[in-house]
């Protein structure tokens, strides 16, 4: 082949020039078009008569596709429900709320780009947090530097609160219960039982995830101190070829109590299926997550099989709280289904909106610095999830942990622990056998 270097190089330079020009043009188009069209909302704000007050714009990035999509979409419904409720009641300080939600595909690079876009292109007044602790750190770096508060409902692991940006700027506020406190009422209940009635043996299969092993590991230490013998404790990867081998091992150990560190419905469903196949029925069965997903859970395992299964949470559809009841009714009116179908993520998202509304009303505007100081001032707020007070790193210290259980043949999701707490019904102490 003829050595053709001079032509080669020229065309290289030319083509690189073309590429650079193209990219610059694309980016210029991005920046100019996005700054000239800041009204990219995924839900239209209803027309209102507040013509002399500009709308409050709020931006959020959510995982509408990708790994967290099923919960991200539930969160979106919660944010949007809050927005339509607030606007129907005249908005905040008489101003309508405009909500922009971007999809981050459950990807940290995209979530950072989204918040950059919301802050610098769309120039939103306020931010709502993303879904998942894994996405909160990169979001917070962007938000903290730009001086925004980040109120969120789905990032409750310690790493979120101790992430360097939050330690420096203290701008994270988690409205939900911190992970480490999830199982407290259950432990209290076990210790309240006489020794002869406590479960003798326990198994702790846990998914390798801060929401899987995070809440369950502290439980193991405390229950062992109460005389419950550990017969199985292993962490398995989130992405598994099959849950069957681990589940079969748990079943073979025949523990009285199984606490499954699950993070989603399929994990619970796979364990339930394996238990049924092995003709094993634990006397007490708790899961860290999954049974709190309403209809998504009962349709997966079957209503009869859901009976007696317990799960910790800060909220449930039947929660005796006026604003929660109103929210549930509004959700059902908007989306159909029944109250039990309402996912806990919806309440978490809704509570985020309520806190932000509170802060804006109290500080008289959308100044983020004032909002941050206000939220750290030790007030107690009331949300659909109950009381909220933030400590200096944004943890919710007023969050009450409850344990819920499926009763009435899997049709009723009831609060059972703490015993004697408002709304608690008698607990089914022994799980009935699986139905078909």
């Amino acid at each position, binding site marked *: 082949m003829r050595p053709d270097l001079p032509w080669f190089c020229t065309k290289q330079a030319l083509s690189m020039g073309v590429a650079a020009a193209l990219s610059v043009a694309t980016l210029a188009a991005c920046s100019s078009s996005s700054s000239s069209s800041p009204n990219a909302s995924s839900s239209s704000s209803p027309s209102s008569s507040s013509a002399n007050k500009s709308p409050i714009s709020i931006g959020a990035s959510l995982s509408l*596709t*990708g*790994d967290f*999509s*099923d919960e*991200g*979409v539930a969160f979106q419904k919660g944010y949007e429900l809050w927005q339509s409720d607030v606007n129907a009641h005249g908005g905040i300080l008489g101003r309508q709320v405009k909500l922009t939600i971007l999809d981050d595909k459950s990807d940290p690079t995209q979530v950072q780009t989204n918040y950059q876009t919301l802050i610098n292109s769309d120039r939103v007044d306020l931010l709502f947090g993303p879904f998942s602790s894994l996405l909160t750190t990169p979001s917070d770096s962007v938000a903290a530097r730009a001086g925004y508060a980040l109120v969120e409902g789905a990032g409750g692991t310690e790493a979120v609160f101790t992430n360097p940006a939050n330690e420096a700027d203290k701008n994270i506020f988690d409205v939900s219960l911190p992970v480490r406190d999830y199982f407290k009422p259950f432990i209290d209940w076990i210790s309240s039982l006489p020794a002869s009635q406590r479960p003798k043996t326990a198994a702790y299969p846990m998914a*390798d995830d801060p929401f899987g092993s995070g809440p369950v590991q502290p439980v193991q230490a405390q229950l062992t101190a109460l005389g419950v013998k550990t017969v199985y404790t*292993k*962490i*398995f*990867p989130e*992405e*598994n*070829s*099959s*849950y*069957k*081998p*681990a589940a*079969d*091992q748990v079943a*073979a150990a025949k523990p009285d109590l199984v606490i499954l560190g699950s993070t*989603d*419905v*399929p*994990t*619970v*469903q*796979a*364990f339930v*299926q394996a238990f*049924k*196949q*092995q*003709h094993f029925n634990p006397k007490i069965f708790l899961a860290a997550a999954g049974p709190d997903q309403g209809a*998504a859970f009962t349709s*997966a395992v*079957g209503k009869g099989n859901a009976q007696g299964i317990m799960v910790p949470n800060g909220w449930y559809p039947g929660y005796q709280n006026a604003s929660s009841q109103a929210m549930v009714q509004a959700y059902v009116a908007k989306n159909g289904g029944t109250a039990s179908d309402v996912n806990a993520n919806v309440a978490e998202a809704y509570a985020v909106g309520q806190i932000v509304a509170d802060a804006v009303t109290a500080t008289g505007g959308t100044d983020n610095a004032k909002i941050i100081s206000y939220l750290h001032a030790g007030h107690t707020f009331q949300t659909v999830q109950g009381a909220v007070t933030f400590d200096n790193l944004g943890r919710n210290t007023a969050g009450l942990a409850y344990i819920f259980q499926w009763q009435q043949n899997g049709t009723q999701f009831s609060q059972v622990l703490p015993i004697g707490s408002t709304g608690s019904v008698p607990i089914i102490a022994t799980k009935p056998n*699986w139905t*078909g």
Partner: protein
Amino acid sequence: MAAEIYRAIADGILIGGVYALMAVGLTLIFGVLDIINIAQGVLVVLGAYLSYSLSARLHLDLFVGLLVTVPAMFVIGVVIHYAFIRRLRGQERTAMTLLVTYAVALIIEGILYEIYGPNYKELNASYVTNSVHMLGFYLPYIYLYGFALALALVAVLYAMLYRTRFGRSVRATMQDETAARLIGIDVNKVAAITFGVGVAVTATGGMMFGATNGGFNPNSGYDLISRLLAIIILGGMGSIGGALAASIFMLTVESLVTIWSPQWAIIVFYAALVIVLVVRPTGFFGRAPVRAQ
């Protein structure tokens, strides 16, 4: 302890059958057509959704439903090949099929999200949760049926490859495409049909996956593809029996290691894969490459 080990081995074999059903299509496509079908994971999920629709809407039994989903996926496979893969030529063909199948995977996943949404679905039947008590173990019916199906499928594919004229064309193309063309084999047709067959058998894998995985949504395919690729390389590209053997091997290794540490189970498998490949680059049953690479 002995009982635990036997149970782990039994589990490994049975679950291996499920993975074999998912991997066989991939090895056929890879072995014959040199195509790294990254879309295989999504195709498994597609098969699961097709079985779901038949079972939930028309109340068809899962295995009976296969009589519909397998031909349907065959057609889908042929269409994909004709539309996208047939045109790829040139030195970088294998790597380009990687990108094309990735694009197809994205499109299928998006369509599944559109139609079914992100919530998890599952396949239910009485034999999914019932089990037979044998030799001191509970062996679930669904896995036994699935394993039987895997054996049957492997047998059928072998019969097709070694007893039919079409099968001979396929093997000839696999050995040397140019020579096959020269003796009059319509290589394009063979390629399209083989791709279709590969996707068709994936329908069975999809049904088994849907029934045993505890719930699936359009995103479930991503985790599968890496394991399936590892299986077919270990078994030898193009070797159907190898896919079955490698599936059983992988799941048994994982199952055994899970007794001590579930987290390390899959790492041990990948490490074993690398070791085997260093010693025997063509996998368990692969043939030595005849074509110039």
